[in-house]
């Protein structure tokens, strides 16, 4: 495959500052100026999925009927890439069973059910901790033990990232305060209300990474957050933290876009951010790190934006992990008869949930109940090759070509246009005048390719097993005939000696 990009001929391989992207309606006014709601009543039952993170599910260490305290370790991580689960409140372990997951399929997943007793009794919290007296390795250990995962939505175990960043001696820690998705304002409110804790958390992370420079990227549609964070960084940041304003567009919050804008570097396709000397974490993660290291509190709550046309009183809620989404929506006066789609996350990249009777997970930034007007859904028409999708794609792919090939069943040739590099941001589907569900095709195609890869592995394994079986049977036959020959020989011998004698 040889092709050339004329633009690259005179810019070299430099990534432009901003590439592609779209400007959806922000729809943040309803929730951006309202303080975080701390008054969510405790639900009658909390559902803690044992897998709310990338990696192996956590293994429960409590039994049904055990009484537990707030912040108590309920399930331990399995292996390196995993995260533990802690009790969001004190109560009794009601059951450990398969419960619908917060996933588009709502398939059941092992879940620990915790019945709160309403007393909110904490475990013994440590007194004063000096985070900077701890060694960097200890900080990673404690971050991992606190169950902290990427709170921007990716839910990747943060301790693993910190370890990688320290090992590769990164030069800059980037903090993602972008929040480019419409409706979502949880990071905005967090920065406005808890800026000093966030700055503290960033300093702790810098210490844990043996690094001296951090940049917080905030979109310019959040001027108050920018000002407040600036003040906190100037006062507490020890000169190590820079607060930068970035243009607001979607997907500015895509980590590689932010890396490119703030540092000018481009991450190679088969590499990670640490390969260019940076590591990125969400502001919410920084706050959770501060709570864990400075106060010894594990990750048991998060700020989540509840919004959408079918929600009467949209707002940001400080909610316990495991709270049923229906209770969050009910707290905000939602009207189920108007809700056409429930979304976990933002409308551009979030997951559609078939019903809100699934629990809040660590990676959920937003819960949306959307009405018919907000969800445009007409039937898809033919592609008119207008190539707006090519212009919108921040990665530089050609969605129209990929979809044409996927529809024709030629998945291998779709790979040539960059199917594997798709980040599913949704910009292409957003601009398509024919309303073709482009991202859905790519997700389907990637899933199909994964299935075929697994099928190929299985085929090779089958061949190997079949060959081994044939070899085993041949060996058995040989041994059997050798044994038979020996027996025959042993039976013949006496006759010979008899004759000789």
């Amino acid at each position: 495959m040889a092709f050339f990009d004329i633009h690259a001929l005179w810019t070299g391989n430099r990534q432009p500052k901003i590439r592609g992207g779209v400007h959806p309606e922000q729809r943040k006014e309803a929730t951006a100026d309202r303080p975080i709601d701390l008054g969510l009543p405790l639900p009658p039952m909390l559902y803690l999925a044992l897998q709310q993170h990338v990696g192996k599910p956590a293994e429960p260490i409590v039994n049904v009927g055990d009484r537990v305290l707030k912040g108590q370790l309920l399930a331990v991580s399995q292996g390196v890439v995993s995260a533990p689960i802690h009790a969001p409140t004190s109560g009794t372990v009601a059951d450990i069973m398969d419960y619908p997951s917060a996933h588009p399929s709502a398939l059941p997943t092992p879940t620990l059910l915790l019945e709160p007793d309403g007393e909110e009794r904490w475990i013994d919290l440590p007194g004063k901790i000096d985070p900077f007296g701890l060694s960097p390795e200890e900080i990673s250990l404690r971050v991992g033990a606190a169950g902290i995962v990427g709170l921007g939505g990716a839910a990747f175990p943060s301790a693993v990232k910190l370890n990688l960043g320290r090992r590769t001696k990164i030069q800059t820690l980037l903090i993602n305060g972008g929040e480019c998705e419409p409706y979502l304002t949880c990071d905005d409110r967090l920065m406005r209300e808890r800026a000093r804790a966030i700055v503290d958390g960033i300093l702790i992370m810098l210490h844990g990474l043996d690094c001296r420079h951090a940049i917080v990227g905030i979109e310019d549609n959040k001027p108050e957050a920018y000002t407040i964070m600036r003040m906190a960084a100037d006062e507490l940041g020890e000169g190590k933290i820079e607060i930068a304003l970035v243009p607001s567009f979607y997907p500015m919050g895509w980590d590689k876009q932010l890396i490119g804008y703030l540092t000018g570097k481009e991450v190679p396709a088969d590499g990670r951010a640490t390969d260019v000397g940076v590591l990125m974490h969400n502001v919410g993660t920084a706050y959770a790190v501060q709570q864990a290291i400075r106060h010894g509190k594990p990750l048991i709550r998060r700020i989540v934006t509840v919004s959408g046309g079918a929600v009467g009183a949209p707002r940001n809620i400080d909610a316990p992990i495991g709270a049923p989404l229906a209770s969050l929506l009910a707290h905000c006066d939602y009207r189920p008869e108007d809700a056409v789609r429930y979304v976990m996350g933002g409308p551009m990249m979030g997951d559609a949930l078939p019903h809100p009777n699934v629990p809040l997970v660590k990676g959920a930034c937003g819960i949306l109940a959307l009405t018919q007007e907000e969800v445009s859904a007409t039937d898809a028409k033919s592609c008119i090759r207008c190539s707006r999708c090519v212009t919108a794609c921040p990665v530089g792919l050609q969605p129209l070509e990929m979809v044409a090939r996927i529809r024709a069943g030629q998945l291998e040739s779709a790979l040539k246009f960059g199917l594997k590099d798709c980040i599913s941001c949704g910009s292409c589907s957003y601009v398509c005048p024919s309303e073709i569900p482009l991202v859905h095709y790519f997700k389907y195609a990637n899933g199909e390719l994964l299935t075929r890869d697994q099928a190929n592995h299985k085929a090779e394994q089958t061949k190997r097993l079949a060959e081994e079986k044939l070899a085993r049977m041949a060996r058995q036959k040989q041994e059997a005939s050798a044994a038979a020959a020996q027996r025959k020989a042993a039976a013949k011998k006496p006759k010979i000696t008899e004759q000789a004698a």
Partner: protein
Amino acid sequence: MSTRLLSAPFTRSGLQIQSIMLTVVLGLAPGTAWGILIFGWPALFIFFVTVLSAVAFEAGCLILAEKRVIATLTDGSALLTGWLIALTLPPWAPWWIGVAGSFLGIVVGKQVFGGLGQNLFNPAMLARVALLVSFPLEMTVWVNPAPPFSASAPGFLEAWAITFASQLPTDGSTGATMLGWVKTEFSQGRLLGESLASGGYGFFKSLLGWTGGSLGETSALLFTLGGGWLLKKQIITWHIPLAMLGTVALLASVFTLVDGERYPGPLFHLTSGALMLGAFFIATDYVTSPNSKPGQIIFGAGCGLIVYVIRTWGSYPEGVAFAVLLMNSLTPVIDHYVRPRIYGRDSKGRPLELSEGRE
């Protein structure tokens, strides 16, 4: 509540095919109105015949193919194709030319390939070239401007006869287009100075459109304004029009400096023929032009080059239709070789190399 499993994104920009087509039609409207105005009733008739038959042929094909008729017809693409075909016809052409043109454009040029978005060649240009080659006489009968109620204009009934009874216009009203006149004069050995004067060429006349030609060949100004409207509405981008017009202007400037008597200058080229219409409305057709911006520039430049070559050295006076068709055939090649660079990879698609080593 729909339980059909759908993927994000759940919100759209609201741009629809129909709004795109209607915006293009609005951009064409001023130029078309001018053309109908200066050529009178027959132009109006042939326009309606072409557009209506285009829509009818599209409906017929959709019914045959058992596709959704009303939903597809209302996206406006057949209307637009028929409109563009009408703009390429001689204004006093007989009705069956319009019908044949629509048939070639819609059925052969679009539906046979699979409908909207599947054709390789621009349907309007395909129709025009096929008609030009098949019916050279009817397709090259040009008239001088004759707006209604002027001396040489046909009345309503006369116009009906011209369009529907195939009555050729009288000799007094026929005339050549500027491009055609200049070419025939060259063949008779008379150079530019003479031919432009005897043909009655004036820059402003050409710009405003008081010249002979098809409906789309007259007012360069109005079609440019229409093109500007499309640019403002972000229906098209500047790449193809600028590349096409720029190439023609550049080549014309170079050659006119070499020999001013044999080669007309850039202003002549830009305002004559269907160059403005072609640059803004025809070459920019989504389906048949390349996907990437650099590819579009190559496409536009290629169109401009071929237009100039045909106009100057070819045997046809106007080359926009041929240029667009030839570049359409190269669009897949351009798309194959000129692609945007994928993030994290170099131009060949390999992952980027880091200057220093990595973990």
